[in-house]
């Protein structure tokens, strides 16, 4: 069987703080094929962003340490690559898109300078060629009058346009994998939809694979082929997006689905997930979700449930996967 395009296997990341060790990412595994979109869904602190930064090896060490696992692009192991080779991989093979475009763009350079510099440095083209490519890129991400926008400073752009510029930079070197870290969370709802649509069409056009990190279930279902639900540093459920939406196999996913407001039903109060996200300095014993889980029993408190393939292509880390209802 050929190697998948992008493999994350049993990835472990810990933060060594003064208060103790936090296992921010605790054994995350998935694979990704060409043109595939995998949504990594989770709440703040679930480890979804940390796992992507670990894959890019841009975490600040200390306090963060990658303590185990493997991240492979084809058959190339990224975690043990020397820094110089890893630098070549970044941007041109694996690129990243950030949540807030206004902090990810350097305020002292125009959009054009940032894009052209990137193309000149990595593609070794002349300034004239780079300018042409940059203009074409801005046009491709749906920016009207791209030639004029090259001369604009980041603060002169609206959030949506700035994020389109970031998308243009992220795909400028035609990466095989794009890690999009909450790419629409800082944008207005109407603009969110436009940027998601753009990302979807770029995936279809360029056949790149995308990991879409989000806390928004609707975003995940709308764009992703598959969804990986993360809780307390682990993937608790993984499967095709539609199936997860219609038939969750983990109580956490089910609870998330129940907390989405339904426009058809007039409810007094939305059902929220009771309890608080786990303190990762002192994680619960057994299944990390058991203190908040309606199905929890003694076994859940004692043992960590392994990820089990409950149906072909459907994985769940729950002892009671069969009892979960939407």
């Amino acid at each position, binding site marked *: 069987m050929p190697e998948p395009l992008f493999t994350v296997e049993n990835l472990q990341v810990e933060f060594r703080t003064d208060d103790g060790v936090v296992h921010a990412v605790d054994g995350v595994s998935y694979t990704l094929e060409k043109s595939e979109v995998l949504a990594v869904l989770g709440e703040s602190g679930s480890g979804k962003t940390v796992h992507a930064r670990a894959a890019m090896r841009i975490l600040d060490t200390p306090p963060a340490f990658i303590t185990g696992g493997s991240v492979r692009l084809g058959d190339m192991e990224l975690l043990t690559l020397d820094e110089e080779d890893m630098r070549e991989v970044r941007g041109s093979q694996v690129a990243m898109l950030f949540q807030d475009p206004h902090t990810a763009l350097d305020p002292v350079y125009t959009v054009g300078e940032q894009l052209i510099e990137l193309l000149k440095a990595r593609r070794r083209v002349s300034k004239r060629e780079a300018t042409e490519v940059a203009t074409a890129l801005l046009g491709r991400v749906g920016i009207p009058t791209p030639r004029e926008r090259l001369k604009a400073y980041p603060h002169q752009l609206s959030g949506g*346009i700035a994020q389109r510029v970031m998308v243009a930079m992220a795909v400028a070197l035609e990466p095989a994998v794009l890690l999009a870290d909450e790419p629409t969370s800082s944008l*207005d709802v109407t603009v969110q939809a436009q940027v998601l649509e753009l990302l979807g069409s770029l995936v279809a056009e360029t056949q790149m694979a995308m990991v879409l990190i989000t806390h928004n279930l609707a975003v995940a279902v709308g764009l992703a082929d598959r969804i990986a639900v993360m809780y307390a540093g682990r993937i608790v459920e993984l499967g095709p997006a539609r199936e997860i939406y219609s038939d969750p196999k983990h109580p956490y996913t089910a609870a998330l689905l129940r907390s989405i407001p339904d426009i058809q039903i007039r409810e007094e109060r939305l059902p929220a997930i009771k309890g608080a996200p786990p303190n990762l300095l002192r994680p619960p014993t057994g299944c990390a979700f058991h203190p908040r889980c309606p199905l929890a029993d003694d076994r859940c408190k004692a043992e960590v449930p392994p990820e089990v393939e409950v149906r072909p292509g459907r994985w769940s880390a729950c002892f009671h996967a069969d009892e979960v209802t939407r």
Partner: protein
Amino acid sequence: MSNRPTSDTEGAADPLDTVEGQTVTLWSDVRRKLKRDRRFWIAAVLIAIFVGMAIAPQLFFTDSLDPSQCELSDSAKGPSHAHWFGTDILGCDYYTRVVYGARTSIEVGFVVGTLIVTIALSLGSASGYFGGKTDMIISRFADVWFSVPTTLGAILLLSLFGGGGTLAVALVLVFFGWPDMTRLVRSTVIGGKHRGYVRAAKTMGSPSRTIMRRHVLPNGIAPVLVFAAYTIGGAVGGEAGLTFLGVGLRLPSISWGLQISIAQTRFTSDPYLLFFPSLFLSFLIGGFVLLGESLRDALDVKLIEDA
């Protein structure tokens, strides 16, 4: 946040006037804004005049006015047609002597400015970029140094080693003045290291050298330049102050501080002796302060739209 257009369909904030086909660079933009800033021109003219006085003082007076032509019989005469600023106690032409005083001030300003910026950029960026032990050693040292009162320390040093020349006064000012800017550079570099665009540049594969040169330094250089202008102004004042206190320059040196110091004893009878050197001193310091302020605004890209 406030000046950001929120609608996605809205156009760029304003059309930037640029040469066709060329992107605007930060520095061309800074130059453009400085050209429009009246404060910058006032500062530039003031500083140019005083630098001119320092380099070629003879250009500022005719042969009829000679600083070495002193007539004791003319002692302390008020301003007149022959002597624009009057004469000093020894009967020398006061205008030419005040003009000659510019050289001392400019020399001190130049030496102190250059040395402090060099020290601050090297120690501050090393401390901020490498962090850890390097940072701890440099920062603690700067903190302890900073706690020494400058005036007291300078008086002590200068009186211990006895009236040095201009250079000695400048070095003493550097000796006690470097921690301020070093701390500024350090905090700027630390602040810049964790910005989103630094992380973004890293994920796009930029080497750390490039990131430092292209992203961290340009974003942090504005406060350093501004502070440098103020530092030079402060050094000019510092020399005058130390000289006035009697520990800086001594006769026969020519310095505004020295002139002010001598003039103070005769303030009630001959106020013009105090007035003219003070006026020149204020204009020079004011020039550097204005330069600092115009730089501060020109280097702030967020103000582009208002320019």
